[in-house]
């Protein structure tokens, strides 16, 4: 009758659908943002606190430049503020020493674990072994069962042994122990990696006259490299953050950063700003790694979850 009647329009059901879609969107993003705040606020808090002064901390100011005027107090106490960075600073030297200890120990032990672990995982995924009564599955279990071993069980025997071996408070001592603790994780990740590479590749290489080790080094290693990087970074995170062994086995020379951070809290009246600066300096490398190499970390942790 009337030509202007709208022919196409959203039916009642469609409109309800649209509304439902919007509410679900809002709910999803709401939860995501809430959790983002939960994850990031402590980091934000640490950064801002490191620029606070005593009254700011007491008043609980939160936003720099709005609530309070940032000051270099915390960083000055570490010797890392603009006006002290060129001057002599014993605290900074101490900090750098600990930082270097942490860096050397975690990088070396992760590298060692990745080398040993990759070789072992490759061998276990390709060949048939018999060490006495132990077959492949037993050897794999032997490596992976180390994961269950709690650090306390090893801690005190190692303390005594290291004392006798003069390895107490040395970098080498910690490196050995850290390698041991991350090795099962590396083997787990790498076993998965090598298992997914078809053996035909090596067979072709072997036919072409390469040796077993040659095929491993030239054909397999490049393919498995992303997995190795993932394992390395995961080990790096674990060893950089390790506190228990470091606290027990080091005292003055080989202290790592977590030990330094922990030892500060005990002193009379915590100076929050310098603690914040120190903590932030300690976690900064890993935040950078986390943001830049997130892909590898996820890859490493996902290995083994999906078969």
């Amino acid at each position, binding site marked *: 009758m009337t030509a202007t009647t709208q022919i196409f329009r959203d039916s009642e059901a469609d409109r309800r659908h649209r509304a439902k879609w919007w509410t679900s969107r809002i709910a999803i993003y709401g939860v995501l943002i809430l959790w983002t705040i939960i994850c990031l606020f402590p980091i934000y808090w640490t950064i801002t606190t490191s620029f606070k002064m005593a009254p700011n901390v007491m008043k609980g100011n939160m936003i720099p430049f709005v609530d309070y005027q940032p000051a270099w107090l915390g960083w000055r106490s570490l010797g890392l503020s603009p006006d002290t960075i060129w001057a002599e600073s014993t605290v900074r030297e101490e900090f750098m020493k600990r930082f270097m200890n942490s860096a050397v120990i975690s990088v070396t032990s992760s590298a060692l674990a990745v080398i040993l672990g990759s070789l072992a995982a490759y061998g276990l995924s390709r060949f048939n072994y018999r060490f006495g009564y132990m077959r492949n599955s037993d050897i794999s279990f032997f490596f992976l069962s180390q994961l*269950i071993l709690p650090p306390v069980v090893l801690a005190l025997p*190692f303390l005594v042994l290291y*004392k006798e071996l003069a390895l107490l408070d040395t970098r080498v001592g910690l490196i050995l122990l850290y390698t041991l603790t991350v090795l099962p994780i590396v083997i787990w990740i790498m076993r998965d990696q090598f298992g997914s590479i078809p053996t035909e590749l090596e067979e072709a290489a072997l036919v072409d006259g390469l040796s077993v080790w040659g095929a491993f080094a030239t054909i397999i290693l490049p393919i498995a490299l992303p997995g190795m990087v993932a394992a390395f970074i995961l080990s790096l995170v674990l060893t950089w953050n390790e506190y228990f062994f470091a606290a027990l086995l080091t005292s003055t020379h080989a202290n790592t*950063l977590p030990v330094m951070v922990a030892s500060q809290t005990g002193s009379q009246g915590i100076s929050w700003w310098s603690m914040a600066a120190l903590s932030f300096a300690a976690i900064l490398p890993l935040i950078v790694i986390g943001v830049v190499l997130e892909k590898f970390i996820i890859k490493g942790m*996902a290995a083994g979850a999906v078969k």
Partner: protein
Amino acid sequence: MSSEGDLLHVVTNDNIPEGRKRFGRAIIWGTAGLTVLVAALQVMQATGQAEFGFVNWRPTLYAFCTWAVALCWGQVLIRGEHGKRTLFVLPAAIFVAALTVFPLLFGLLIAFSDWNLSSPTGRQFNGLDNIRQMWTDPFFWNALWNMVLYSAAILVEYAIAFGLALLLNAQIRARKFFRVAFLLPLMLSPVAVSWMIGKSMLEARYGPLSRLARFFGVENPSFFGSPEIARATIMVMDAWTYIPFMMIMILAGLQAIPKELNEAAKVDGANGWRNFWEVTFPLMLPVSITAILIRIIFKLKLADIVINVTSGGPGGATDTVTSFIFREYRERSNVGYGTLLAFVYLVIIVIAMTFLMKLADRWMRPRT
């Protein structure tokens, strides 16, 4: 994956001369003999029978390392191509065996002795005294019970992690940003976390979380005052660090589920809720169980946060076994008793984990 039988079939023509084999055996046994000899000499000095001028036990360590190298080299010398294959696994095996088996055996010796590291009397065998002491030590049993409670908290962590993984797997924008943000807590050192959250943000007077609690009407918020609340606070802090870990494992599992399955369920008329419980969740069961088991293993090692934030207080309410032994050693430097506790803990863990794995196996079987 642990298949028996070589996956790589290599036929090698090994003609190893007898002399080379003999040389290989000679270096292995020679260095083994050297190690035993050096160790024997050092034991003699340690027991006071003779004096050789050893300062520490390093010589034995070096001799052992030589033996390990000789063993690896000898494999190639004696068995040729097969030896080269052994070389893949042997270094790691020697490394792990040397660093766990020997300390564990040594620890067993320590566990049954009274050994105060700072006292001059040294180690004294005291039989079952440590066990008797453990039996009557309420703090140790309390710490063990705490571990049960802490482990139970994993179920809540799992639920949250699953929820977050589902959200990240949904159709959202800026997924990478959220993934990175959610991952960050895992990267932070527990010591820094215990300072940042435990000491600073939960400060009773001017910490931001205390302010928040006061805003919601809590009088005098105190996060470490009563045992229950203190324990819950530690649980929350530990959960904060490790939820990303479970989340990522579950996310990987979710992404491996073929889209067709969920679509088929939708076609069959399942709504979101039923789709989740009848398709997604059963498919995720194996991944979930793996994630939970690994998380339990990590949880059983929990110590740094407790040591740094509460040092076990109030009244041992937040103690984990590890932190308890740590303090036991720090305060009394009694190595023997601490080691015994650690060994008892290990035995309990091994039994519990074996049981859990058997249980998990049975759960997973009929569904997959």
